């Protein structure tokens, strides 16, 4: 009987089972190194999320500044955009010849505008592209002419994000290092508190430990420093977070986040350094919506990826968590999702 043959074969194969002890040790060792990697990715996500809070004002930036002939104060109330909105923020590093979208963040505004949800999308996330997959940060540079035209890169990244998430991207913006410099100067400098002194390897600048107000050039210099810091790139991410927190504080103190007129002036000043896309929305409507939601403490979330299945090519979406997360995003139920998955919420403070 073939069944008996099979049982006998399995019994013989069973004899070759190796001992369990070494395997147990190998598992524990592998877990430690995976945890380390997971923490690294999380930290980068935190920095990004905090940066996004500061950039929310940016989202409202029009590609075309408001016409100077327009009446300074509109007597009619602005019709506010209804329903949930999704905004895409892309930070690109343009120092190398080709630009890559190294910070990609989806800002979700729920229909009730109660708060902002900052969904960081890991730059190494694999997204579908023609006939295969590619890393999310590569979608930006794939666009023809993205080296000079930020809008072209933004469009391909926007399409990739829309395909991945299934939500409509209603508006968005791209920020470069020069953009960060302009913004910093436009708000009158940003307070940054450093736990340890930092020495620039690019310029002669030295940043002492403690709190200081940085102008645009100094801020960008600080954001670039990675070598010589105790934890290298990790400390750079932390400094980016400190900068972003200071920028947001500055914007809040000035009331810029909630005041369309102030924001408009800021936009006029910084406008050219940033590429923005307001989609079908009017600038005032977008400002009103994001400003109201930005008044509350935002919630940072990371797109659930499979940290444990690093293939060397990039991260796959987490097969168990990602579908539920995307359903919640599409149905404007991120509040419930965040409540059900407290361990997936990024601490912003």
């Amino acid at each position: 009987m073939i069944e008996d043959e099979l049982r006998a074969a399995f019994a013989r194969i069973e004899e070759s089972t190796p001992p369990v002890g070494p395997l147990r040790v190998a598992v524990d060792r592998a877990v430690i190194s995976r945890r380390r990697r997971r923490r690294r990715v999380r930290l980068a996500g935190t920095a990004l999320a905090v940066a996004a809070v500061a950039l929310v004002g940016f989202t409202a930036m029009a590609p075309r500044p408001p016409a100077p002939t327009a009446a300074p104060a509109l007597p009619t109330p602005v019709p506010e955009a209804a329903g949930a909105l999704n905004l895409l923020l892309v930070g690109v590093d343009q120092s190398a010849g080709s630009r890559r979208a190294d910070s990609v963040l989806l800002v979700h505004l729920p229909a009730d505008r109660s708060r902002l949800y900052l969904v960081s999308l890991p730059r190494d996330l694999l997204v579908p592209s023609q006939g295969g997959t590619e890393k999310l940060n590569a979608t930006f540079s794939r666009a023809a002419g993205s080296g000079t035209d930020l809008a072209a890169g933004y469009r391909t990244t926007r399409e990739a994000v829309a395909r991945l998430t299934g939500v409509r991207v209603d508006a968005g913006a791209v920020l470069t290092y020069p953009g960060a410099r302009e913004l910093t100067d436009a708000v009158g400098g940003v307070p940054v508190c450093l736990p340890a002194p930092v020495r620039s390897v690019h310029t002669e600048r030295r940043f002492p430990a403690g709190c200081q107000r940085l102008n645009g050039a100094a801020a960008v210099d600080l954001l670039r420093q990675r070598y010589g810091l105790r934890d290298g790139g990790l400390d750079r991410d932390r400094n980016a977070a400190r900068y972003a927190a200071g920028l947001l504080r500055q914007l809040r103190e000035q009331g810029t986040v909630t005041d369309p007129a102030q924001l408009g002036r800021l936009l006029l000043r910084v406008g050219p350094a940033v590429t923005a896309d307001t989609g079908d929305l009017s600038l005032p409507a977008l400002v009103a919506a994001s400003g109201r939601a930005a008044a509350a403490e935002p919630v940072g979330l990371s797109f659930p990826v499979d940290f444990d299945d690093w293939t060397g090519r990039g991260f796959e979406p987490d097969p168990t968590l990602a579908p539920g997360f995307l359903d919640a995003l599409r149905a404007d139920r991120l509040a419930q999702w965040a409540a059900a998955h407290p361990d997936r919420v990024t601490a912003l403070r």
Partner: protein
Amino acid sequence: MTYEEFADARLGALLRYAVMLTGDPHQAQDLVQETMVRVQLNWRRVARTDAPERYVRRMLTNQFIDWRRGSWARRVLLRGEADQSVPAPTDHAQSAVDRDQIRSWLSRLPRRQRAALVLRYYEDLPDGEIAEILGCAVGTVRSSISRALATLRAELVEVC
């Protein structure tokens, strides 16, 4: 239940199961290691399920079935020297030939069919539980087992 308790109780059984699936102690170790790392990292989620062991077995089976898409197949290829803790077979010539034949028939089966055979004839699980582990209908389990048996029978006739 903690991860440690689970590993103390079930790691041996899972390793034997992986040896049956892969037919190779090294690949089995890698398969179980990859699965158990994920189990440990996500232990809270695993422990919340009704039957953690079945859940883990399902993870392991999926990992085995998808092994070309995943990362652990590469790790097998890149593995260094052979594990010295596993002695070479010392059986006499004929039984070694038999073993090799049955192993090679098994290894030529589609992975899903092989997993179904292991679950029924080694683990002695009822078809309903096999279906749950493989993530398919009971009818599909039965038909794939009978297809696998038919393949093996044909091989047996050919050789004998």
